[in-house]
Each structure stands twice: as structure tokens, then as C-alpha cells.
């Protein structure tokens, strides 16, 4: 591996100052399971890694009125161990438990997963189907970004140089809102070939609210607005599900890569949307 400096600031302020000194020759590192792999593959070339591991303000999971606050440096292990998240954000809980493998989950963080901005990031669809915002610490104070608008392309976000993703704030879904997550890989432990989440609320038989997000089918995690529009106000029938399945296939923009072909991803998009709807009404 190429040589780099490794700094371990103990406060966000220190971290930001360090980053501003190095400019784009530095990068923040949380669990390291993405950044270090990229460094080894020479897909990332920086002179300094600034660790966020020892900054207490970035940790913690707590309920805050009608939202849950998750510190960016919360590991997936901590998320899985949180009964609060298991109960109130079950789709995120599910995504966390199928991400990578136990060793990775012990150090990888939700902030890292989001900032890495892979189109296949598992934590993103479950967050994006709810009202989620990101609190970002800058040298001038805090600012907010809506998760849904945060991604610019594969590996690219609205996070600027010298900014630290501080926490993720998720508005708690109502108790009537059903959320589910599905991940399809080639084998049980894999980067998602396609993943997806749904948040759906029905009143009687009709869909009152619905949001559906698929990952790994576009340059960024994709909200299927066409699918959502189709479902809104409707009674879920097998025919509607079939229609929506076709719509999903048409709405996504997947690519062919070493993991899967565009055609298979398109096909899976329809399957996942179908299954998410079935799970949402089944419960």
C-alpha cells in the first residue's frame, strides 16, 4: 500500500482543521473497510487519512421526540444491537444485518456507508424511504442535507472538503407505516446486485403513502416515483402488482458490470418491487 499519514483527532473541530490543511490530499476514514480497500486497489490516492474513530460526538443512537438520531460513526454492529432500531426502523436493521460479514460489521459505520456513496449501499434504501436528513458539521457550523438529494453519482456526494458527516436523523415512521428491505446478491454474502426498500401505509385497502427506493440500478440509489404514483390511492391487486413490476423494470437505469448484466438487474428490480409490496401488505 502507498504510504499515507494517519491522524487521530479527538474532536470534530480538530478533524476539520486537519482536513483543511491537507485539502484534497486527505480523506476522512471511519471503519476503513471501503477507503482502505480503495487505497490498496489504487482507486484512491491521498496522502493523509483522518480517522473519525475517536470522536465521541459522532457516536450514539437515541430517540429524539419523533425522530431517531444515529451518530455517523455508529457501527453496523451497534445498529444491529439496538432494540430501538430493531423495533422502529426494522428495514434499516435488516439491511445492517446482511451487509458484508461479521468482521466488517464490527467496524464499518453507517456514516461511512453513506459517504462512500456506492449505488449498492445497503443502508441507503431503508433510510431513503423515510424522511431522513444528514447533519453535517462544517468549519462554520452545522448544515443539513436531505438524504434523498445527497448523492451526485457513484462515489460522489454533496459533502464538501473539510466537512464531516455528523449524524443521520430519521423521522420515525408512523406505526401504520410498514417498512421492508430486500437484498439480492449472487451468494449469501455479497455486494447487492440489486437491493431495495419500501415504506407503505395503507388505509383500509388503499395505499395512503408509499415510497420505494432501489439501489444498484442507477448511478445513485433511485426513488421509483413512477411506481409510487401508480400505487398511491390504489387498492393492491395482483394485476396492479404486475403492472407496477413492469413499471419498475422500465424506470430503472442499471448497467452491466462484472457482477450482473443490465437485463438481470432490470428483471430483479421488478421482482424486488413486487416482493416489497407483497411484504408490506402481508404484514
Amino acid at each position: 500500500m502507498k504510504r499515507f499519514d494517519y491522524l487521530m483527532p479527538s474532536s470534530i473541530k480538530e478533524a476539520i482543521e486537519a482536513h483543511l490543511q491537507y485539502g484534497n490530499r486527505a480523506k476522512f476514514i471511519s471503519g476503513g473497510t471501503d477507503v482502505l480497500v480503495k487505497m490498496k486497489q489504487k482507486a484512491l490516492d491521498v496522502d493523509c487519512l483522518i480517522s473519525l474513530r475517536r470522536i465521541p460526538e459522532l457516536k450514539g443512537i437515541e430517540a429524539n421526540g419523533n425522530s431517531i438520531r444515529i451518530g455517523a460513526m455508529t457501527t453496523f454492529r451497534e445498529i444491529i444491537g439496538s432494540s430501538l432500531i430493531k423495533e422502529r426502523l426494522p428495514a434499516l436493521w435488516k439491511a445492517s444485518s446482511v451487509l458484508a460479514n461479521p468482521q466488517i460489521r464490527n467496524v464499518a459505520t453507517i456514516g461511512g456507508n453513506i459517504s462512500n456513496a456506492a449505488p449498492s449501499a445497503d443502508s441507503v434504501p431503508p433510510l431513503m424511504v423515510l424522511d431522513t436528513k444528514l447533519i453535517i458539521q462544517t468549519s462554520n457550523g452545522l448544515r443539513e442535507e436531505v438524504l434523498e438529494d445527497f448523492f451526485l453519482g457513484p462515489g460522489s456526494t454533496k459533502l464538501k472538503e473539510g466537512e464531516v458527516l455528523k449524524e443521520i436523523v430519521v423521522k420515525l415512521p408512523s406505526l401504520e407505516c410498514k417498512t421492508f428491505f430486500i437484498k439480492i446478491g449472487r451468494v449469501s454474502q455479497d455486494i447487492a446486485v440489486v437491493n431495495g426498500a419500501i415504506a407503505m401505509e395503507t388505509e383500509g385497502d388503499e395505499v395512503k403513502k408509499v415510497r420505494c427506493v432501489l439501489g444498484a440500478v442507477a448511478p445513485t440509489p433511485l426513488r421509483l416515483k413512477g411506481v409510487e404514483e401508480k400505487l398511491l390511492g390504489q387498492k393492491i391487486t395482483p394485476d396492479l402488482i404486475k403492472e407496477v413490476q413492469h413499471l419498475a423494470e422500465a424506470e430503472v437505469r442499471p448497467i452491466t458490470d462484472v457482477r450482473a448484466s443490465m437485463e438481470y438487474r432490470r428483471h430483479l428490480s421488478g421482482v424486488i418491487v413486487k416482493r416489497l409490496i407483497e411484504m408490506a401488505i402481508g404484514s
Partner: protein
Amino acid sequence: MKDLSFVGKAIPRPDAADKVAGKAIYIHDLKRPGMLYGKIKYSDYAHARILHIDTSKAEKLPGVRAVITAYNTPEVRFGFIRDNVALKKGKVRQFRDEVAAVAAIDPEIAQEAIDLIKVEYEELPGIFDPEEAIKEGAPIIHEMDPRGRPKTDNIVPVSWRFVAGDVEEAKRKAKFIAEDELQTPPISHACLGTAGCIAEFDLQNNLIIHTKTQIPFLAQNDFNRALAQIGLKGKNTRVIVPTLGGAFGSGLDTHGYEYIAILLAYKTGRPVKIVLSREEEFKTLSPRQPTRTKIVQGCDENGRLLFREVKMVLDNGAYTSWGATTPSVMMLPISTLYRVPNVLYETLLVYTNNTYCQAMRGYGNPQATWAIETNLDHLAEQAGIDPMDIRFINKNIPNDISPMGLHITTCGMEECLKAVRNKLNWDEKRGKQRDKARGVGVSCLFHVGGSGRVYRSDGTGVILKIDDFGYATLVTGAIEMGQGLVGALIVATAEALGITPDRVMVVTGDTATCPWDVGTHASRGAFTACNAAIMAAEKARAKIFEIASEHFLNRVKYKLDQLKKKDPNFQLPDLGIKGQLQPEDFDMRENLIFLKSDPNNEYLKVPLDELVREAHFKEQGTMIVTEAFYDPCNQMIDTKTCRGNLSATYIFGAQGAEVEVDLETGHVKILKYVAAHDVGKVINKHTILGQIYGGAVQGMGFALCEEYKSEKGRMLNPNFLDYKILSANDLNFPMEVELVETIDEAGPFGAKGVGEPGLVAVAPAIANAIYDATGIRITSLPISPEKLAMAIRKKRNSS
């Protein structure tokens, strides 16, 4: 067979404790004083002329001790048709071609130096499909053959053709015929411990090389040839094999990186270590031979197989290694799996700019069985016969000679098929669960079980040494690569000798001190080494009993005298021995020598160690060291007629799967897997199960998810992220193993070799089950979820 104390039991292997303690030393852990680290620069193109190599900057980098290319080192030519060289000159023919190498004081500096080497190329058009490579106008990959004669095509001068009976005639007579085209991709060995070596010279210019190999003596020969090429003719090589982190056939060849390490060691005068990174392991180590097969089989109205015609086009890659000889093994199932009187097998091997291939567990058998067994199910369907029944109808039988001249002695195929039929509840399930997308499938297998004479010698030597403490050391040139050879050897040696397995120490892996062995291939390790151990043990027993005839009674009387001294009231027993004892009066079990005529008499037992010391510590003493060289009763295959009894015995088996298919995503869930194997005799229960489970799971990877992907010669998935091998989480289903013991007299205690068979039948068993579940026959491996889902979708859309 006499009462066995240890054979058949689950005996912990002697190397297990060190391995779980992290104390075993693999090539990665080994350091030699003054060692340098070597790194290799690979080609930037699949096919190009080398115009210029600039190593000036690399040479100046502090810490670099040598930079070598083909232009400043003697040519080292290798490969079984000698068409490969260690460092490439003039031309590169594949991305993994070695163009330069560096030795430096640490691996980071070595890598930095590699990056500083600049190579100028003139790119040439590449050819990546064997069927394209034989067309007129295709770029020529080797313009000269290894002897320097001009070459104007891409056909490899190695071909295989087997003919038995008259296939054309049989085609006319057959009532039912099925034809298929099937493919298998290259497969990476994916050993957890990557390949590597440390090469060094002593002050007489003999080479000592610690290396990952399964063929230390053949490697010694290869390296001696290399020494001759670098000007050291007559010098010798000592090959030392450290603990291996898996091999699966990747150690049956000598590799470019080994010759490069030797060149670097020679140039610097220091030990040079080269260890492949995981990426290099995937990209630069030869994978399993891919195949494209056209198969036709036909049967009569009763389902009796009349003919089998198999034609293969094999992508040989840029150089020739054992991949090119896989047809010599594929010939075995093609000619002999099931009783088929008329067989035609033809291959065409073609050079391309893809990677070249080497041996991998099964050595072609998995690829051939994939074609035969998938097509057989197709034929069964044509004939309206249940696939299980058609296999019973055509099953191999004991004491038969196949069209290839293979002498089948014991044969447990019928028992194996029965086991699969019963354990899968075949009759209740086959053809009855399509509504649930569930199905059952079966495949048989047949492989060498008594080694395979692929070289002129098929021998394994051992030396057995009994020390003064009653411990036996079994020294052999056979190699432990994880498969459990040592586990089998301690049992066989202990049993044959009459001591306990905890007192057997196995020493392997050093050409200077271990007796010759041709190599650990063809599932031969336990078969030959245990047979040799038994021979050596019998000689040792003869010596021990010879000594006993002289010293046994002395020891007995001495001990009785001691007892009497301790307790004057002790009554000296009447031993009932008249006259001189003879060697044949004795037996030995569990470290004790006793009289056959009075085996339970506690006074008439002498521990082995006492007897050895008695014989050793005196004037004109003697030691107990015996040797044996076991070379099985088998033959090399005649290369013209492709006939010969390649193995001393053959192993049969049947495997079956019950699967459930997710028709939307294409994922195949195995509900139950059954592996029934005719193993002759179980020597060590732990190691035999390990080989079958392990082989079966590699087979599942072959069937469902493994694929070396490349595009225009460039490997696309050189990491575990995208070259998927199965994890524990993928395998949560019962795997039942049935061990059928046919007790073959050629084998040690009746045992046959089982290293490879576990893998051979898996892919067709699973594919046949998928067919039962979905009505879809996938003919190319792997049957990935994508492939299956899209095939299901296509079928649904067209109907």
C-alpha cells in the same frame, strides 16, 4: 481381514494442533537470513511485441538489489512442451506474461521498483476464442514452435482421440438419441494460502528452494534443467515444501515465479522470496481448463447405452501446461462411465491470448462428467426412462474391463446409486414437485482410485525408522497439502506395524531426505504412501520379531526377577515356553510384543521400546530402519491407441441433490445433498469425510457461482469480492455422506484414493435437480442466479 484397531476410526491428525494454534509455518511465514523480496512486472497487453524495457530508474532505487529481464538473464525454458519461458523476450502473449522482476530489501521497495520499470510495446491483435483462433487470418500466437521451427497456425501439437467400436453404426441402431452442447469456464483454485517460494543457492551453487509444490521430485528435475540453462549444469536442487495452504492441483506444475526467484537468487547471491498477492494469485496462476463440448449419446429401446460421442474444443491459452493433458483423464469417464460399447472422443487444443491452464482437482473429470451426466438425463427424457433407472440399467459392475482397457475390480456404483435413491426419497419426489419449484437430480462419477500412471514411474517411497522409545518415523516424498495424507499415514503405519497412531511421526517435503515420490496427484497420496508404509512396516515387524526371538525371553525373565526381588513371596509363573522362540511366534499390537500362542498373558508382553533398546545398546547392535518403494500395478496409456489400465483400482460414486428454485431471482437453494462413494475402505474417518465434504462444496461452487471471468484476455474478477467461493452461510442444508466399503485388494487395508471424487459429480447432480424443478436445462456453468432467472423468464415469455 484381521481385527483392526485404528483403521476406520476418527483419529485426530497429527498436524491439526499446530495449525489451530497458528504455529504451522507456511511459505508466507518463512524467513531466511539475508532474504530479499521479489516482485514481478506483468504485461500491459494480451498480445504485443516488446520494443524496449527501461529498467534504469528501478535499478537506481535505494534498496533494490537486482532488476532482471529476458535481456540480461539466460533463457529459462519450461513447460511440458517447452513453449514457455520464465521472462518474456520479443513478445508477450497474455496479460500475465512476466516481463521483468525485481529483488529488493523489502516488498514495498520491490513494488515501487516494479512501477518504475517502463516497457514499450507494439500492440498486436489478440485472439480470445479458440474457434476464432483456428480460422484463416487469425493472428498467430507462437510464430515458432519450441524447437525453433516456424509455426503458421494456432493449433497446439497435443491432441487426443479415442475410438472404441463404431459410433456411426451405433447411431443408426439407436432408438433414442440426445445431443447437447455444454460449456465450463476456467475455475480458480482459490487456495486460502497463496503460492510462493524462497530460492537460494549454497556456496557450491546448488539450489535450495522452499516452495509450494505437490511434486517436489519432478520440480527438482524441472529446476535442475533450469540450472543447466543458467550455466549450472550438474548442480542439484533441494526442494523443501513448507506447510501448504491448500493446493488442489496448482502445485502440479512449476511456475514462472519460481524460475524468476531462482534467477534473482542467482543474480544477488541471496535468498529471494516471492509470494503472490491474492490479486496475482487470481490473475497469474493458471486456472482449471475450460471446455466446450459437443456430446451425443444414444440408447436402445430399453435404455441401454449404445454409443457416446464427445468432441471438445479446448482453449489452451498462450502456453501449454497440464490443461492440455486433461483429455487424457477426461477419456476415463468418457470411455468408462457406465457401460458404453461404442465411443468416440476427439479434442482440438488451440492457442489463444487467454491465460493458460493447469491441473485442478478432478483434472478434467468434472468437466467431462458435466457433459456426460447432463446429456444422460436429456437422453433419459427422450427415452421416457426415469434418470435414476437409466443409471441402474447402465451401471458399471465389478470385474469388468472397459473399452479403454481399464480393469474395474471392485465397484460400488450400485450401492452408491441405491443410497442416493433412498436418501433423497427419489421415487416419491422425482417429477412430482414442479409446482413447488423443487426437484431431485442424480449423477454418478468414476475416477482413478489406485493412482494413475501419468508418468513412467507411479512410485512412492518410504523409510520407516523405529527409535529407542518405540516411536516410528515414516519418511516419505508424498506431500501433505491439507488433504489429510498424514492422518491416513499415522493410522496405516500404526495398524500395519502394531503400535498406536500417537507414536507415528510423519516427515515429508524434502527431496534431500525423503524417498522419491512421483507427486501427490490423481488422489494417490494415501493409496500409494499407505501401501508403501504397510510394506515397510511388514519389513520392520520381521526385523523386530527377529530381535524378539533372541531378546524377548530375556526381557520377560528380567522383569519377573525384578518382581521377585520386590516381593519375595511372588510366585514365578510357569511361562509354558519350550525351546527356542522363532520370529513367527510373535505378534505386536498397540506397542506391545507378545506371543501369538498366549496373547493375553500379561507376563509375556514386552513393550517395543524395550526390545529396540535391548537390540541397540550393545556391541554389534542393530537398528530398525526399513524402506519400501510401492509402484502400483497400473499402466501408462498408450498415446496412439489411448488404451491402458491407468489405475490399480477405480473409485465409483453417486451424488444427488434436492433443490428448490426461486423462479423469480434464479437462486438455487439446496435442500439436501447426498454423496455416496465407494471408497474401498475408510482409513481415517476424519480425513475421508473432510475430503468428500470439501470436494462436494468445491463442486457446488463449480455448479452455482464460480467463474474466472475475462474479457479480451484480461481477468475481470481477481478478488474474493467478485470471484465467489461459498461461505458457511451458503451451505445450511444437510449433507449426507454414505461410505461404501468394497475392500479392494490393491489398496492399503482395501482403501481407494478419495481426494478428487467428491467434486466430480456435483454440477450435473444439481443441474439435473434444477431441471426436475423447473423444466429448464442449463448447459453452461456456473448455473448462476442470473443465468437461470433469465432462462426462466425467456421460457415464460415465449409460452
